[in-house]
């Protein structure tokens, strides 16, 4: 499996994502730079977390217009799996590959803690076979408050595109406790929690590997 991890100026989870896929899941990792004009042949593209472009203007706004983004959009349009984690989720919303936007946390503070999330949609690559499964995953964000208009939220629910939902407690004020969504074709997914930070028993547990390892489960079918 070949996985492309994109680094923007200000990405800071790219190394963790690379290690999770290479060391823990045995994938071949391709490092892409935001100024590249094309993608090497790959089975998935990951936009990692961080503070791309220092969160200037809006989180993800600059990165969504980076030089590499047209190639990523074309890959997504061909059905290629694209996963955005935290800042990557914000970028995918800004790039209009996903619906809605991530607003400032309701508390206004930066939140860094473990949360429980449950899998609602198991028709994405990452959650296949995991319906109803609960994960403990770390969140670390200032702007994770998922927002979309009521009609969009209703459509997400009706079409089964809410992929993960915060369990029990809403950490950041997200509409309907949404932690992850997908596009209509199910190949583009964004989530606020950090699965790569839960990929080793020494730190954070290994629930994140179940999620990221969906790439391998998908290939086995």
């Amino acid at each position, binding site marked *: 499996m070949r996985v492309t991890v994109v680094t923007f100026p200000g990405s800071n989870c790219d190394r963790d994502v690379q290690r999770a896929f290479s060391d823990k899941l045995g994938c071949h990792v391709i490092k892409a730079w935001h100024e590249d004009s094309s993608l090497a042949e790959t089975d998935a593209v990951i936009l990692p977390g961080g503070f791309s472009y220092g969160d200037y203007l809006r989180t993800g706004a600059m990165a969504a217009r980076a030089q590499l983004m047209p190639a990523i959009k074309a890959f997504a349009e061909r059905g290629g799996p694209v996963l955005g984690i935290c800042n990557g989720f914000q970028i995918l919303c800004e790039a209009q590959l996903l619906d809605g936007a991530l607003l400032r946390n309701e508390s*206004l503070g930066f939140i860094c803690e473990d949360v429980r999330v449950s899998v609602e949609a198991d028709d994405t690559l990452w959650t296949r076979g995991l319906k109803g499964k609960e994960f403990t995953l770390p969140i670390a964000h200032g702007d994770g408050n998922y927002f979309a208009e009521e009609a969009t939220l209703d459509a997400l629910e009706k079409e089964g595109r809410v992929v993960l939902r915060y369990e029990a407690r809403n950490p950041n004020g997200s509409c309907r406790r949404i932690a992850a969504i997908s596009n209509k074709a199910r190949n583009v997914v964004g989530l606020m929690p950090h699965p790569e930070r839960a990929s080793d028993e020494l730190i954070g547990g290994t629930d994140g590997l179940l999620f990221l390892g969906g790439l391998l489960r998908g290939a086995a079918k």
Partner: protein
Amino acid sequence: MRFRIHVALKNGVHDPQGEAAHRVLKRNGMDAFKDVRIGKFIDVDLDASTAEEAKVLVENASKELFANTVIERYWIEELS
């Protein structure tokens, strides 16, 4: 030609910054304030052959980059 683009969260989109500022005003006895919404503005200077052309360019830039119309609204002011 110079323009100022004002960007603010749409009405109905929760503005926790504005609400926090509102609470501080109230705590300080400024009860007359019924609502506080916080936004930003962006000043641009550009070359265009006509004012009309400039306005179109600023409008496009606002829509494409300066504002995320999922959550924000914007209005453009011409600066002298």
